[in-house]
């Protein structure tokens, strides 16, 4: 039941960061809708010639089809134009085995820490800002509940309208549109946005990590539960078989004794 307690910790961590993610998402949207004449390099949409994919796998196996589902999704990207950044040992092994280009390899612990998210976000941001890639995507497993984990592709850079990711509880567009008055930025829109984006990317990666970890622990617990169940079934069958054989032997021996006794009489 180690998996069950790890799963609970990972799930709680994921759920408790949701309000933070929602608020950050809302602020990001307010900031970008109210500062339209300001173009930040991280917002720049370019024609996609090369892209980077951040792939979040697990460190260990024994978690059902989680990784294979994820890697199937990662396979669809053209190896010639795609650079991979991996987090988790299995993801790195997969990229190496299939001969794709690996730009960097990161790890994250069982309970992901914010400090582990920062270098990943920084690496991807630098690739994008230097113009090495025109788009950064994240391929990771989204945690829905204990039984359902969904491999998904979400956009990371450029920062735009996030289409692939539904944040539960995030307000609808109407709410923001109603609020079209001027917004004051102190000191300036540039500094506030630069700070916001820096934070936004780090938190984004951190949340993806937490979700991936919660998914992994849930999938592992379910896989382990299935293994326990089928082992229990096997034991039951074998016990029945054993008892059958034993009973047959006893009956046979009794018959022999009885037969021998009859012969003596």
């Amino acid at each position, binding site marked *: 039941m180690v998996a069950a307690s790890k799963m609970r910790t990972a799930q709680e961590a994921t759920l*408790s*960061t949701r*309000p*933070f993610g929602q*608020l*950050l998402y*809302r*602020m990001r949207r*307010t*900031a970008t809708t*109210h500062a339209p004449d300001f173009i930040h390099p991280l917002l720049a949409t370019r024609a996609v010639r090369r892209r980077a994919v951040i792939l979040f796998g697990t460190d260990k196996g024994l978690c059902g089809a989680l990784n294979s589902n994820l890697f199937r999704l990662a396979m669809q990207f053209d190896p010639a134009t795609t650079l991979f950044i991996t987090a988790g040992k299995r993801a790195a092994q997969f990229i190496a085995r299939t001969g794709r280009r690996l730009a960097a390899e990161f790890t994250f612990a069982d309970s992901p820490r*914010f*400090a582990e998210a920062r270098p990943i976000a920084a690496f991807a941001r630098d690739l994008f800002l230097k113009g090495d890639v025109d788009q950064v995507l994240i391929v990771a497993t989204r945690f829905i509940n204990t039984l359902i984990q969904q491999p998904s592709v979400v956009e990371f850079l450029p920062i735009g309208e996030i289409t692939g990711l539904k944040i539960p509880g995030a307000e609808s567009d109407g709410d923001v549109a109603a*609020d079209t*008055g*001027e*917004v*004051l*930025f*102190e*000191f300036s829109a540039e*500094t*506030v946005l630069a*700070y*916001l984006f820096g*934070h936004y990317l780090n*938190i984004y990666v*951190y949340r993806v990590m937490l979700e991936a970890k919660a998914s992994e622990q849930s999938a592992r617990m379910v896989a382990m539960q299935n293994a326990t169940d089928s082992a229990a079934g096997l034991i039951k069958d074998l016990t029945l078989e054993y008892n059958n054989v034993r009973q047959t032997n006893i009956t046979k021996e009794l018959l022999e004794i009885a037969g021998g006794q009859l012969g003596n009489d």
Partner: protein
Amino acid sequence: MAATLKLEIVTPAGTVYAEDVEMVTLPGVAGQMGIYPRHVPLMTQLVPGEMIAHKEGRDLFIATGEGLIEVTARRVAILTDLAIPADRIDEAKAEEARQRAEARLREKLSDEEIASVNGSLARSLAQLRVKRRRRV
């Protein structure tokens, strides 16, 4: 009844505070600022320091880390890495964190490490300031 503002304080660990208050004083990047209801929409940065929420004649003191502030006419949303009400600050722990950070600063560090140590130093100082001021 006086007009109120909805004050929301959210940290990565969850929502710390979400209540209607009459006024709030915040440590912003441009200095300490007081926000009343019907404030003009504003976005700015929060710096480590002391936040005061005024609610029904009582003041609640909160130590904050750095983060972002979003003000609209009816709401103040604060996104920060740290927010601890004065009565829950562990002074000994904060003092220990301050000393640890100061000791680290004397070592040879990379720019990134210095930034992160300075950050934790500012956070522990903010807590100590709030706690010690309340006592005298």
